[in-house]
């Protein structure tokens, strides 16, 4: 496949990283090309590269400064990395349109777990039931992970449930499902946060003890489905049982 015609800019992120920016936007096609480059460069790293961080519309390359400096000759290590990235961006890109897994995630939208659902509904002139119906109506793309271990930025929600984030962060419980702007996400850990909380999942998005600590990865597809408080407790309890039986063996 030919390289897509997205224009880009490359700029330094401090003295030991460069960011390739495809345009400061939330766009599925741009995100697909960012992730495709990410998977390609993970397989075939740039010389001196230490880590790659994909985001909505950018890809950041961290590098080993002393190592790169040795090969850079008369130019700076940054200039050498930018040149290298520009060369590699000319390579054919193998777009991974559906690289991720499809996850159906249970969410309990009961007001006990949804401190902001009434406010969000009122701000959009709809009922809380409509908020739930709309939130569960779409398949979301995981655009990126960031902010907290395993925090997946997903989008985009129906504009009828979109709402700008809170001006001041408040304490948010782990596993809370929130909306900010046109994004939706799940807090993997207790944390301050500014997203509007409309429910909670009994699933663990992040568990340091698991072999794969993080459940969702960039490129995954996510659907939410509504569960009752009873279902919520049952799923939680069965997960606990599973953990303790694993502990026994």
């Amino acid at each position, binding site marked *: 496949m030919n390289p897509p015609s997205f224009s880009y800019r490359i700029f330094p992120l401090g003295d030991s*990283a460069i960011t390739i920016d495809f345009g400061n936007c939330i766009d599925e096609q741009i995100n697909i090309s960012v992730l495709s480059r990410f998977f390609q460069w993970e397989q075939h790293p740039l010389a001196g590269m230490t880590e790659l961080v994909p985001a909505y519309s950018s890809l950041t390359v961290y590098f080993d400064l002393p190592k790169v400096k040795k090969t850079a000759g008369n130019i700076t290590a940054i200039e050498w990395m930018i040149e290298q990235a520009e060369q590699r961006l000319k390579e054919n890109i193998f777009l991974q349109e559906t690289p991720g897994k499809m996850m159906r995630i249970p969410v309990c939208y009961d007001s006990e777990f949804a401190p902001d659902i009434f406010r969000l509904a009122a701000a959009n002139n709809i009922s809380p039931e409509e908020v739930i119906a709309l939130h569960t109506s779409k398949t979301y793309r995981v655009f990126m992970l*960031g902010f907290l271990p395993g925090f997946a930025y997903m989008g985009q929600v129906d504009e009828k449930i979109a709402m700008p984030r809170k001006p001041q962060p408040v304490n948010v419980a782990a596993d809370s499902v929130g909306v900010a702007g046109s994004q939706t996400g799940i807090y993997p850990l207790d*944390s301050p946060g500014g997203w509007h909380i409309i429910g909670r999942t009994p699933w663990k998005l992040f568990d340091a003890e698991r072999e794969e600590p993080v459940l969702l990865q960039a490129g995954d597809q996510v659907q939410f489905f509504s569960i009752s408080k009873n279902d919520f407790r049952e799923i939680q309890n069965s997960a606990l049982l599973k953990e303790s039986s694993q502990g026994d063996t």
Partner: protein
Amino acid sequence: MSIQIIKAGILDTVQDGGRFGYQHLGINPSGAMDKYAMYIANALVGNHPEEAVIEMHFPASVFLFGYPALIAISGADFSATINGDPVAHLHPVWVNKNDVLQFHRPVYGARAYLAIAGGLDISKWLGSYSTNLKAKAGGCHGRNLQKGDEILLCQSFPSTPGQSEFIVLPWKADDQREDIPNEIWVLPGHEWHRLTTESKENFTMTSFVITQQSDRMGYRLNNIPLPAMTNEELVSSAVSFGTVQLLPDGKLIILMADHQTTGGYPRIAHAITAHHSKLAQRRAGDKIQFRITEQAIAENLYLQQQQHLQQLRNACTFRLQQYFNG
């Protein structure tokens, strides 16, 4: 072979060079705030440069050695004693079983490092010993050291001759303490141009106080607000140790070792890597001043530090061999 925490410090954690390769999952690198100091401590006891160390804030923990060991303390000077006798900073120190290491006064700096020859016998999480406080993983049970914790050591060590007094080995690392500790050199960030002309001037001409709301994640600065020309929102993208972000109220935050992997605030500058060490040794209440430099200088300063460390490692290996194998 172990050391025991007989009194907990305010925030002492196991750290190493950091956990890299997982930022795309939102898992931050953690690692020592002052890696340069960590490298020095490890060099003094003959460890691998990235071996796990204990990073201490003041007031620091009180340690009881359950076994003889070779240790070194670097970074901040908290006026350490062993069994009540002052112990030299930046020297290898040979301690005996039942020796008690404690720290009395913050003389200089914010973070001290304790390295022990052979390293700490703890398991890695995702390839690193570093404690990730947010994820509650890595290091010692994913948290700061607490009273009663016992950390096993990887290597046994003989008692000092006569087994009575601890011995300060007669050589010292040159810590190259910076001549202008408050001056942090930066490179302009991608959103530097968003600052008004006056804000740009204020950024370099005024000094910035590190507030109490500063920790391993970042330093919040108390500065006169720096207005920007645009408040156009940024979608989240990667941020790094040393990134200086402009908050909506015009205040600044410098991201440190436990920084978020991504962020959406304008990145107006980045502290150069060679100055991360001195930045990590600034305390709440300290003033810092930014000075804009260029990439080539940032690279050279970092390489000089690396060369200095390599020389130190070579010298230490030689001295330790001479001392113990005669």
